[in-house]
């Protein structure tokens, strides 16, 4: 899973597989972080009034 | 260390089915050598552990032509398609808990790594893999007879024949102690089943070592077969065959028999294919 696990090899199989995996995880992580931070910002600074609908 | 390396061993076996009497000594020797637990009720064989299992074959003919043959089946230590080490079971294990050792050709099983998904069992056409459905138990007092060289297995993991790998390790230590480089002497490393067989039906050794008896009997062809490139190491002895050879599993257990019907039971053939295969084998090398 990580390059420091002893079965890790720097070959095409590992790079493609874990490349895809970490890529997907990053998108999900970054997307959620962005949503949460933005929501926090809006909640704190936009006086709680409904500006969406 | 890849297998084509001159230094690499390729341990294998040839079992003479015409000598085997079906006595089961190999099974018993294997169980006690490798600390295989005993179930409370051993009558249901489908979930008991027998690394070495003797099958009973028959020629399906009515009396008086009935003939039977016993076929001992350890793990076949498959080298996989094209002899690349991708055994059916090794290539599917998601946790790298079973591995192909290129320096010996032995398929290992790491008990503390296996989490019991049983995918490898589904992949093995020889049913050489056994799951620990129960906690390991031995009859009272038998624990003190367990071998200290082999770790017992816990419930929920898969196990199988290891070619008595601990004996290989001991042999290696001895060789190192003697100041030699590698195991050359055939007798230095033998499996428990080989030694236990009263009929001398099992011959074990290094298929990469031309001095070893197993190599002399099997005469493995190091090149891929013309009609099936997945198959490597086919025997050039017409009396010797491997189980399910055409699947390309490239097993390292060879079987030997004078009897045609026994050899035919080694693989699946469409109508007419067997005669061709047998004649071809016989004519070109016999």
């Amino acid at each position, binding site marked *: 899973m990580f390059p420091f*696990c002893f079965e890790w090899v720097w070959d095409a199989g*590992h790079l493609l*597989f874990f490349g*895809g*995996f970490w890529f*997907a995880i990053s998108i*999900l992580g970054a*997307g*959620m972080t*962005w*949503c*949460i931070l*933005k*929501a*926090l910002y809006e909640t704190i600074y936009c006086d*709680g009034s*409904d500006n*969406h609908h | 260390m890849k297998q084509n390396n001159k230094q690499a061993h390729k341990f294998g076996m040839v079992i003479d089915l015409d000598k085997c009497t079906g006595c089961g000594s190999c099974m018993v020797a294997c169980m006690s050598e490798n600390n295989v637990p005993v179930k409370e009720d051993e009558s*249901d064989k*489908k*979930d008991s552990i027998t690394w070495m299992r003797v*099958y009973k074959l028959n020629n399906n003919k009515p009396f008086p032509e009935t003939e039977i043959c016993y*076929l001992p089946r350890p793990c076949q230590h498959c080298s996989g*398609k094209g002899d690349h080490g*991708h055994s*059916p079971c090794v*290539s*599917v294990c*998601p*946790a*790298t*808990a079973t591995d192909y050792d290129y320096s010996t050709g032995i398929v290992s099983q790491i008990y503390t*790594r*296996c*989490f*019991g*998904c*049983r*995918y490898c*069992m*589904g*992949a093995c*056409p*020889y*049913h050489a893999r056994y*799951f620990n*459905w*129960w*906690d390991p138990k031995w009859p009272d007092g038998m624990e003190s007879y367990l071998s200290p060289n082999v770790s017992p297995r*816990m*419930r*929920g993991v898969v196990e199988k024949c290891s070619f008595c790998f601990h004996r290989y390790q001991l042999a290696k230590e001895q060789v190192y102690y003697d100041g030699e480089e590698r195991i050359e002497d055939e007798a230095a490393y033998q499996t428990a089943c080989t030694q236990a067989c009263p009929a001398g039906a099992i011959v074990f050794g290094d298929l990469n070592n031309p001095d070893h008896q197993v190599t002399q009997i099997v005469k493995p062809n190091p090149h891929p077969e013309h009609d099936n490139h997945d198959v490597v190491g086919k025997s050039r002895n017409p009396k010797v065959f491997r*189980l399910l050879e*055409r*699947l*390309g599993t490239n097993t390292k257990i060879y079987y030997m028999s004078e009897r045609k019907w026994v050899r035919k039971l080694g*693989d*699946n053939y*469409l109508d007419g*294919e067997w005669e061709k295969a047998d004649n071809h084998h016989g004519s070109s090398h016999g």
Partner: protein
Amino acid sequence: MDSALIPEGVKRCSFPKFFIGIAIVGAVVLWGVYGMLVCWLKGLNVTGMDDYYGFALWIWADLAVIALGGGAFFTGLLKYIFKVDELKNIINFVVILGFVCYASALLILAIDIGQPLRGWFIFWHANVHSMLTEVAFCLSCYFAVLTIEFIPNILENRQLDKVPFFHNLSHNMHGVMAIFAATGAFLSFFHQGSLGGVAGVLYGRPFAYREGLLVWPWTFFLFTWSAAAFGPCFSMVVLRITEAVTKKKLVKDNVIHLLAKISGWMITTYIIAKIIDTIYWATVTAPSMGLKMSFFFTGEGNGPYNYLILITEIFLCGVVPGLLLIVKSTRENPTTRLIAIILGAIGVSLNRWVMVLQVMAVPVMPFDKWALYMPTWPEIATTILPVAGGIIVISLAYRYLPVFPQEKELNEVTVE
């Protein structure tokens, strides 16, 4: 009693009635949990599996619920990437259904493995060449995607929505949902496929083995395709059940017709590919291993595995629903459509059964025998457990969340 939680403008049954319903299903859940504890504490010797049958009911259930839950990724793909906007009226529901299916699969896997506490080894010590590794990674990631897709719907609950942070969060998540859905579709392609690969790569098992493209056997593509084709069928079946239980129309017909039409074409194209695959396997792959097709269906001691199962899978539960859903008149007729979607859901489950259970049953060594298997009660209880759990999740979601945007319009609450 709980009226403050119920979405505005819709009608729900009384709380005691709801509670009794949940309690009945809850009893089934408890039975399942008991079975699960028995498996964990006593070990897998309580199951009907043995060394010939290491993969059985559970693995089938896993493959089946994931195929049936495939409606979630495919509908998401159509809605967010191909912008088929009508599907917004059903997307919440299929997401919940997908969530339930994937949660079930993960739970069943946790019971199925011999050493559940070592389950994480599959990630930590991953063998990237194993199809099961690919399944585990994509499945868990996609479960995360489904959770993310489900959250905004939960946050739209009347009380939760009053909290400004939740309100903003749900709005923001809607904004980037297309990205999540695209990631989900990517992950789904691989795990649906690798579930097919699980059987297809077994070159020691002539019944399962298939040639393929690069590292993927043909079953890889067939499984993805069939999940996309039959998943929506199952979504429609469950929707139909929900409508029957609630005695309400929840989604407009045009939405259903559209989904049914897409599903129909997917099924038809899939089944053509499946027929080609079967013919190729029967005439080239299996004979190259020395086996005739008839051996797999008429061999001595083959138990229930005869040609009937093949014909049922391909014709009755493949070709028939495909055609029924393509033809406009049968697609728009509620009865024939219902028949088609039920057959479809059965067909894909049957395919998964064959690709797991029959694979294990067929002997490979010429002197070996067919292996047959009967599940025991702990296996059955733990397989029903997630179904019951799913019913509870869907009921709760339906009661407290605005799952169906068209519900209000279709069921004007009349003031008496």
